[in-house]
């Protein structure tokens, strides 16, 4: 199967305000949000971008949708470098790639009714006005917003979080995209509502044959909706593999700690201390070599001098760790 999306050594640095000393010495400090990541996503795959805050997962998602432009490297969507898209090509890309937001309470214009909100992409794509209503209704059915008539003229503040997230999803689906990025799509929702949205996203993805990237800090969630998971740490992908395998047999020491730290709703669970210490280092000055080395229980001299490449350790399984270098 052909890759729908290919990221090739993508880098994104955000410049920060320079101090007087830095201006004097001519240095340009930057937050290394994404620091050289490569992966390919096949058509129809659902991939989780997993990591803690500041690991670069949200920036990666924005890069994939061209809401930000990489500092270096290229991202190809259906063979085209999205960094160079303009005019009609960009408009086409915007129709085919959509985003589902984290906070449904903010993702909708408070002055727009549900009808207007979902019709907005149609307006922007130049779909004739006469077709809007029918397509909005169809998108609403797709996300199980039953009782279309009851909802069409509502404003966001008149709806619950779960309903709003359905509206956000309907808006993303109304142009029938082929690629979807969902940034923490349920983290703002209550547990009892969360499950419904996750089920819906799973069903919709299958029904429409979408390729999807889920950005999340929550391993349990990623496991529920993703076939494959990329674990990110401080701007790097440290592990990549089928979700079940990553959870069952994590290879990178960071992933191992992450899997261990995930809380489970049972009283009988391991309370042993995590095999990891300290905090995530400053993304302005990442450590030399392996970025995880100063928190890693297995760190060796080589980890400081040489950066471990993300290499294939088994079919469809990549890990960036010197421990696994045969």
């Amino acid at each position: 199967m052909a890759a729908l999306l290919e990221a090739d050594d993508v880098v994104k640095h955000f410049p920060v305000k320079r101090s007087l000393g830095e201006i004097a010495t001519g240095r340009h400090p930057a937050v290394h949000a994404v620091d050289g990541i490569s992966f390919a996503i096949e058509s129809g795959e659902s991939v989780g971008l997993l990591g803690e805050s500041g690991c670069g997962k949200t920036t990666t998602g924005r890069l994939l949708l061209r809401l930000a432009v990489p500092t270096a490297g290229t991202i190809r969507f259906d063979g085209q470098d999205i960094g160079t898209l303009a005019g009609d090509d960009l408009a086409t890309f915007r129709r085919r790639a959509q985003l589902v937001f984290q906070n449904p309470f903010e993702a909708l214009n408070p002055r727009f009714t549900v009808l207007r909100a979902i019709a907005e992409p149609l307006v922007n794509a130049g779909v004739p006005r006469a077709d809007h209503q029918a397509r909005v209704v169809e998108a609403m059915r797709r996300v199980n917003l039953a009782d279309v008539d009851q909802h069409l003229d509502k404003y966001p503040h008149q709806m619950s979080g779960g309903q709003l997230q359905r509206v956000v999803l309907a808006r993303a689906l109304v142009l029938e995209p082929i690629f979807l990025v969902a940034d923490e799509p349920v983290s703002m929702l209550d547990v009892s509502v969360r499950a419904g949205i996750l089920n819906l996203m799973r069903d919709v993805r299958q029904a429409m044959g979408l390729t999807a990237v889920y950005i999340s800090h929550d391993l349990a969630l990623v496991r529920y909706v993703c076939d494959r998971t990329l674990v990110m740490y401080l701007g790097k992908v440290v592990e990549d593999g089928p979700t079940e395998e990553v959870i069952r047999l994590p290879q990178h020491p960071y992933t191992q700690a992450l899997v261990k730290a995930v809380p489970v709703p049972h009283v009988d669970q391991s309370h042993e201390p995590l095999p990891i210490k300290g905090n995530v280092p400053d993304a302005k000055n990442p450590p030399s070599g392996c970025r995880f080395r100063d928190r890693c229980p297995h760190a060796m001299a080589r980890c400081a001098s040489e950066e471990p490449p993300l290499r294939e350790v088994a079919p469809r399984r990549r890990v960036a760790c010197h421990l696994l270098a045969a």
Partner: protein
Amino acid sequence: MPASLEPATLPRPTPALWPRLVRAVGRAIARAAAQLRRDGFALAGVTIYTVFAVVALLADVLATHDPMEILFLPTGKLAANIRPGADFLLGTTNLGRDIYSQLIHGTRSALLVGLSAAVVVASLGTVVGLVSGYFGGRIDMVMMRFADVALSLPFLPFVIVLIGFLGASINIIIMAVALLLWPNTARVIRSQVLSLRERAYVEAARVTGASTWRIMFVHIAPNILPLSFLYGSIAIGWAILTEASVSFLGFGSANVVSWGYMLQDAFASQALSRGHFNWFIPPGLCIVLVVVAGFFISRGYEEIFFPKLRD
């Protein structure tokens, strides 16, 4: 999932633009009216403006004389310094002009100055704030430096110098007020836009391919319009005050009757020391009323904007 198996809802015809627009305006008015009911100050402000607006519109009907005409008594004597009465409601000036009619016509020029300046200030400030805040970068930099310069000019001296160069006219005063007041509006709107453009729903519009124009005017502008109105209503008071000050200082236009002109006229002919209260109290009171009304209304707006001020 409760997949709904009900029969498909019949697509309703998309409502035409006009009825929707009318409904939206209706809703906005209803909201403003609801706010007025709660806020006595704003209600007072609106009432004062309404009264003055009616007076300005009907000035020709309400005025009993031509405000600039020198009047004579039936006896042929100059009708100078006459006390208020049935013939001359507020008396006459020392040159025999009817004070009441001057006041009525002064309302017209005051509101003309105030409203035109407000419209220019609000629209200039809004457009600059929007563009500056949304695009940022160099455009923002240049526009904000212009704003800094405008803010650093001393108000009255600038107006007087401008009049000295371009001649005294109401249009020049309106222009001067607008030139000096737009930066306040622009700055506030710019900072609001800076936060609005980062909102998730604005980003959402961008992802769905909305044009820059559409994002600015459809998604961001409606949220800042109340702020534009707020600064516009403050500008009304400022403009009227400025026109009055300039006229009082004797730099006003000689052929337009305004409240400031009346005050200057009264001052020059020593009405105060002669005890002709009927000459200078009415225009002074009108100025105070209009300016205060502007601030009352802006206060009401503020409460809509910053709900935390309530209670």
